[in-house]
């Protein structure tokens, strides 16, 4: 699905990713954990194509294509989805209009026909159930006046609608109470298939109780320094990151 090879990236001249390697195969869930400032959100931003970051070396293969050569919107159209840590508000633009525009742009890119209003609406009804999103939220302006939990559920709802190959969940658990966390995690689990993959970026082990990863990676100082099974997350929860810092400083 995605193969990241010796990736170096910097912002404002400061190197954040310092030779990161990661391979995620279809059907897998990978968790990326690490202390503050390790480069977790930078990784998500760089993969999604935020322009502020400069890629200084390395390569990223996304399903046989050179990801770094693609524009931000083409990465999305090829099936890369980022669930934002801080979803953005767009006043006056309804969630439905936003999603329909997105869906049709993706379809056009793939040479498919535009979705009919009827099919689209039944898809909205079906997919909004996955995250127990109130149908009313679908017609409200994108994220405007949504609570923290509603914003995160809306991200997963969008993910369900756009059906990506690779989803990157950037700190999706931050700011969620336990019920919302369960709903969001259930949504992600429902959408999981042998054809897609998920990268879960998180600080805490808590989310991984619900979204069970196949691999846990520890990101520290711009590199993946340790990889293990899901039990590694528990170990990190118990011991903190200091022993990692000590080992790799």
């Amino acid at each position, binding site marked *: 699905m995605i193969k990241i090879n010796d990736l170096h990236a910097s912002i404002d001249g400061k190197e954040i990713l310092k030779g990161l390697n990661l391979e995620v195969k279809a059907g897998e869930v990978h968790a990326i954990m690490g202390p503050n400032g390790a480069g977790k959100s930078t990784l998500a931003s760089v993969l*999604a*194509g*935020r*322009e*502020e970051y400069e890629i200084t070396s390395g390569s990223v293969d996304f399903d046989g294509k050179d990801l770094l050569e693609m*524009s*931000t*919107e083409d*990465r*999305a*159209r090829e099936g890369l*989805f*980022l669930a*934002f840590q801080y*979803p*953005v*508000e*767009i*006043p*006056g*633009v309804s969630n439905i*209009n*936003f*999603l329909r*525009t*997105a869906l049709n*742009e*993706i379809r056009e*890119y793939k040479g498919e026909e535009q979705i009919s209003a009827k099919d689209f609406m039944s898809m909205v009804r079906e997919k909004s159930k996955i995250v127990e999103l109130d149908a009313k939220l679908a017609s409200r*302006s994108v994220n405007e006046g949504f609570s923290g939990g509603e914003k995160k559920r809306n991200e997963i709802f*969008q993910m369900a609608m*756009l059906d990506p190959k690779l989803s990157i969940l950037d700190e999706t658990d931050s700011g969620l109470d336990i019920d919302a966390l369960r709903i969001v995690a259930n949504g992600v689990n429902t959408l999981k298939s042998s054809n897609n993959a998920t990268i879960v970026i998180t600080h805490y082990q808590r989310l991984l109780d619900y979204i069970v990863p196949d691999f846990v990676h520890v990101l520290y100082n711009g590199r993946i320094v340790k990889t293990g099974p899901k039990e590694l997350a528990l170990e990190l929860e118990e011991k903190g990151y200091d022993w990692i810092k000590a080992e790799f400083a």
Partner: protein
Amino acid sequence: MQEEHVVAEKVSPYNLKIPMGYTENELAQDLQNQEYKFGFTTNIESDQAPKGLNESIIRFISAKKEEPEWLLEFRLNAFKTWQLMSEPTWAHVHYSKPDFQDIIYYSAPKQKKKYESWDDVEPEMKETMKKLGISMEEQQRLTGTNIAVDFVMDSVSVATSFKEKLAELGIIFCSFSEAVKEYPELVKKYMGTVVPTTDNFYAALNSAVFTDGSFCYIPKGVKCPMELSTYFRINEGGTGQFERTLVVADQGAYVSYLEGCTAPQRDENQLHAAVVELIALDDAEIKYSTVQNWYPGDKDGKGGIFNFVTKRGLCEKNAKISWTQVETGSAVTWKYPSCILKGDHSIGEFYSVAVTNNYQQADTGTKMIHLGKNTKSTIISKGISAGKSHNSYRGLVQIHKNAQNARNFSQCDSLLMSDECGAHTFPYIECKNSSAKIEHEATTSKIGEDQIFYCLQRGISEEKAISLIVNGYCKEVLNQLPMEFAVEAQKLLAISLEGSVG
């Protein structure tokens, strides 16, 4: 009195080739042809007055139009007043003052004979209307369309459609000149009652030299079943356009009126100084919508229309007047559609989107004058500044002594799209009655990198992202427009903001 002054800072790293597209394919087509597409001229012989302005020019115009003596008097009085006035300088705009002696005040497409029917209209003229998207021919044929159009080119009204059908309901919709001839008592009764000749420099000038425009009268209790529309067009070079519109809705009547404007692309600045008067008698309602797309000048600020317009409506008891405007054109705009809420329980509304790009300057807003008890007004103003343009909102809310329980809500938002443009807000509030409730909200925002990135990450292209964001921003105003106009307005927004984020 408050004053806000905001100048844009760095906005977005995205250099967009095509800034925003409406989500329909036809817009994509329009966007490929992004020059000012109404910049052509029509090759029609015209009948002109000599350049300059003096009493004999005014007599010439009046004679040309075969006007009655009282109207000539009206003009000459206005001219005398005008000569004593000087151009207003308080607006936040800078331009070289027009030379009023270098303007042709009367220019009319030369008519071989009077148009008795649509068939008499010259092919060149029909072609012009077609290019402008005014399909009167279609309208003549098709039933079920619901817009009656009056077409005013340079100084005269060329054609008005659906006249007979409207006449059955007693509705008068015709050119101003025709109204002077056919309904002189109505014109005499109402003309100049809302915008007196002494009102301001440009209103006085208009009153002296106006050449045509539209007149509309809706009789008591009649709801006009179709949109009435006037299309204004400046064609000749060196001319000014001075039209007058007078809309009277008698007791309990309703009318929705639309106005559209374009002009050819010329290097010179042309002057457009119009006067619009609306009168809503007891329980009447007038909805007046404008899509203004006068030639804005080129990318370096050369040429373009000076749009100095006085628009005002008077509300009697329980009456309501709504102004909705989408302003994308003109080099300089100076315009404040206003409501005098004279009658108790009357309502005034102002919804505006003003877009400026390149070197355009706009100083626009409204005045809500509360005289009656329980009067209400709403002001929603959305300014969008791009390029090196300056966009100012200037509004006055005035609550008079006897206006018990007056209410006003104002919202003035500015959206900045470049780091060299400016947005300015000048809200004035004068309140002489302590029972009044006045609310004012103002925001200034930059089109957000984060918003654009969010859209891009969902697979939406940059141009569509900006279209979504800008249309979302203007939604409250666009929603006020009649359907046909709303689509046109959205397209205009897209075209006007070409290459504007950066």
